């Protein structure tokens, strides 16, 4: 995970967020990914979303596994803690981190190889636990660091750079997340910053596991004709089903909207989402129909994007465990050790 230090220049005219920080405070090192990589656009969206949201950088834990996507935490939020784990195992580290410190903002970045092949089990189980984190999959259908093998998200019939055709059906993390009870399921495109930034904010504010699958073209190995993860293909077939506006807690909802037209969703931290249907035939509140819609559109070659499903009512890992509010790593030892008298009393049963 190489990165090049970026000189920090703060112009007096730069806007400041609720913490008094500028966008520069949310940047990271210079990217060493290929010029034009979709991942760099996602990095920029993360920087903007975190800045606008006003999350304290040192309260964020940037989690990743192995792969091009997993390198990117070095390129944003340099004031945050980073954890670059082993291949496919970031969700378990994130689970432990959340168990120990429920106040952390967990921001996971993974790829289609990391999440859908070697780490499919951990990814699904983190979702099943409704772990409180934003989990971004930077999905390009290909292994970059090992030079161009198909990944598990490659579409049937997609061609690699050498012209070979993929003959295995893809694993779609969005459909899987819907089927497994995911409480925040979204898809976007790295080139659509306008859509991506509110989705990142919403995902961070959601209590529970927020899956954000982002089609993120690989300019070196998967941006050619015949690829279904190329810039050209993504632009042409991006079907924005839902438009999401993110309204922070301190802001009032200004724009007037007709009920039935827009669905407002309140998140646990007081922020609100305004979800507006772009595709008339999409029913946002229905998990089963969402899956069916995705399958139908996918057969037609379209990539459905937007916040496709949200359920704020489900307990996260700590809700299900009834863990105390104080993060466990801050509970004083005196409240954890039962003491010598209890030990003496307990041992009566062993006599």
């Amino acid at each position: 995970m190489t990165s090049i230090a970026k000189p920090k220049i703060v112009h007096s005219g730069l806007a400041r967020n609720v913490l008094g920080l500028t966008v520069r405070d949310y940047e990271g090192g210079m990217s060493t990914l290929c010029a034009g990589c979709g991942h760099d656009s996602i990095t920029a969206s993360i920087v903007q979303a975190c800045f606008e949201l006003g999350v304290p950088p040192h309260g964020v834990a940037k989690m990743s596994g192995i792969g091009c996507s997993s390198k990117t935490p070095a390129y944003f939020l340099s004031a945050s803690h980073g954890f670059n784990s082993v291949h496919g195992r970031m969700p378990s580290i994130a689970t432990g981190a959340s168990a120990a410190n429920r106040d952390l903002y967990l921001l996971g970045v993974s790829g289609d190889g990391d999440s859908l092949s070697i780490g499919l089990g951990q990814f699904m189980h983190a979702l099943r636990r409704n772990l409180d984190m934003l989990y971004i999959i930077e999905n390009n259908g290909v292994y970059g660091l090992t030079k161009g093998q198909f990944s598990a998200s490659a579409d049937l019939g997609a061609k690699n750079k050498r012209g070979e055709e993929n003959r295995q059906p893809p694993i779609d993390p969005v459909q899987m997340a819907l089927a497994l009870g995911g409480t925040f399921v979204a898809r976007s495109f790295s080139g659509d910053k306008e859509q991506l930034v509110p989705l990142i904010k919403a995902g961070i504010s959601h209590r529970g596991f927020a899956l954000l699958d982002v089609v993120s073209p690989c300019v070196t190995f998967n941006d050619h004709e015949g690829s279904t993860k190329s810039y050209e293909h993504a632009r042409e077939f991006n079907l924005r089903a839902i438009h999401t506006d993110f309204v922070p807690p301190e802001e009032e909802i200004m724009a007037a909207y007709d009920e039935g037209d827009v669905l407002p969703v309140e998140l646990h931290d007081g922020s609100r989402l305004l979800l507006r249907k772009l595709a008339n035939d999409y029913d946002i509140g229905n998990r089963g129909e969402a899956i069916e819609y995705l399958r139908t559109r996918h057969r037609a070659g379209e990539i459905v994007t937007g916040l496709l499903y949200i359920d704020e009512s489900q307990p996260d890992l700590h809700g299900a465990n009834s863990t105390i509010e104080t993060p466990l790593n801050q509970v004083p030892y005196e409240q954890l050790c039962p003491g010598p008298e209890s030990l003496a009393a307990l041992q009566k049963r062993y006599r």
Partner: protein
Amino acid sequence: MAKQQKSRVNDFVLKIANVNGTGSASANALIMKTVFRMGIPVTGKNFFPSNIQGLPTWYEIRISKDGYLARSGSVDIMIAMNAQTYTRDLQEVAPGGVLIYDSTWPRDRLLARPDITIIGVPLARMCNEQFANVRTRVLMKNMAYVGALAALLDLDRAVIAKLVEETFAKKPALLESNTKALDLGYDYARANFECPLPLRVKTLNKTAGHIMIDGNTAAALGCVYAGATVGAWYPITPSTSIMDAFKAFCERYRKDPKTGERRYCIVQAEDELAAIGIVLGASWNGARSFTPTSGPGLSLMTEFLGFAYFTELPAVLFDVQRVGPSTGMPTRTQQGDLLAAAYASHGDTKHVLLFPRDPRECFELAVTAFDLAERLQTPVIVMSDLDIGMNDWMCKELTWDATYRPDRGKVLSAAELEAAKTFHRYTDVDGDGIPYRTLPGVHPRGSYFLRGSGHNQYGGYTEDSAEYQQVLDRLAKKWRTAATLVPQPEIRRSRQPTKWGIVAVGSSDSAIDEALDLLAKQGVYADYCRVRAFPFGKKVTQFLEQHERVFVVEQNRDAQLKTLLMAETQYPSSRMTSILHYGGLPMDCRCILEALGQAAAAGVAA
């Protein structure tokens, strides 16, 4: 009738052969506890199948006035409750011993053995006559043999009655049926046989200040007292009861009675790969966290163990060893994971291991493991085994020092970070090879990027040879520091000067203890070094150097402890003799007696 044995009081072995799933465990525990409360040292070994119902299971109780806790190697009284295994159970009884069987179904031919006493008690018939419910009949057969034993062995009936009362305090109906079954067996034995037998018990005062506890329960209690808050695991025999017990203790001590809020979090992971990941994620955030596992789980955890070694994260593992290789025999015991644990993972990795010898040390070393893991910022693996973990051992009462506070190691606080100009994760500030660390969310200056890829002393990514080697060499220095911090070995000197030494770890201890006493009576002497940790400290190497010949006693085929001694000390392997016991049953002293006896006869330099 066989020739009556000479009277043997408080020194014999009782073995109960049964079918698993018939509820014999509570009856066997009742016998053990009765003997224990009568003040007589006792130990129990459970030989059970990897199965839920219907397969043979045995429970072996050794009653030893001298306090020997290992198996004796022979059986004096067999309670043969399983028709499937009658033949072999009959064979196992030592000459002059006793076999008790359910004479509801006469087995004259099968039971023919002129050199032992055969006692038939119609357990099933009596219970069928007394109890209507089918399940009750099966369960009460077990209580009926306890009743018969009470008469035959002269067990204190008041003690039995008290124990039964305690067990069924909240279930009066069960108290009544169990008491009735006990009486059935007792009365029948009194009416039909000369009671008590020459093999019998007599009240002593040798168990005061002791408890009967299994190692997994004790280890779990150690985790509670050490202040562990996050437990992650994947169920695997024989480690499972650690997390079961941890949960039960936490429900008792760490749950707010009003709100139901918990001051702990247990995650049942999808597999062991995730279990160790959860532990590392939690300890990265400064919570004490642990995972119990066994061999197959340890194999799965190796990638993350190397990661934790290199990124310097604390972690506590309990490896309750079972028989390998592969799935092996999940309900049998071994010390077969020593090498796999010591060098788990690719590249140059080494891990701190602790070796408890009994449940009491499982409790104590659990606490030590957390302190060491945080002090050294590295995984610590407590190497228990099935014998320690799942059997009830008599050991000294657990005690707790109220002044104990966890050693959190070199963790910088917000104030320290505020005062510091800079923070670098992997610099050797103190010269002991242990760097300083920070926790996420504490202070902006503490942020760093943790990575398993090559990094320099500042925590930055590197592919530079010199920078990489600097970090790796410091880790070696930290390893040398670890050797000074881990628990010292326990050394037992022989009464006569000797050039022979025995080296062993863990549960082999009780067999060695007994062997040394018996050998001394034959004029064969050896010193004994019970290694309690890896890396080996100075005292271990000194012990080796003080002896011309060292017998390395261990419970595996490939002499793994000897291999570690060869790899990590300068002591010549030609002067080490292996004594290996690896069939899967807890060790008894015979293999040690034999090896040292032969060596003495052969005139091996002593």
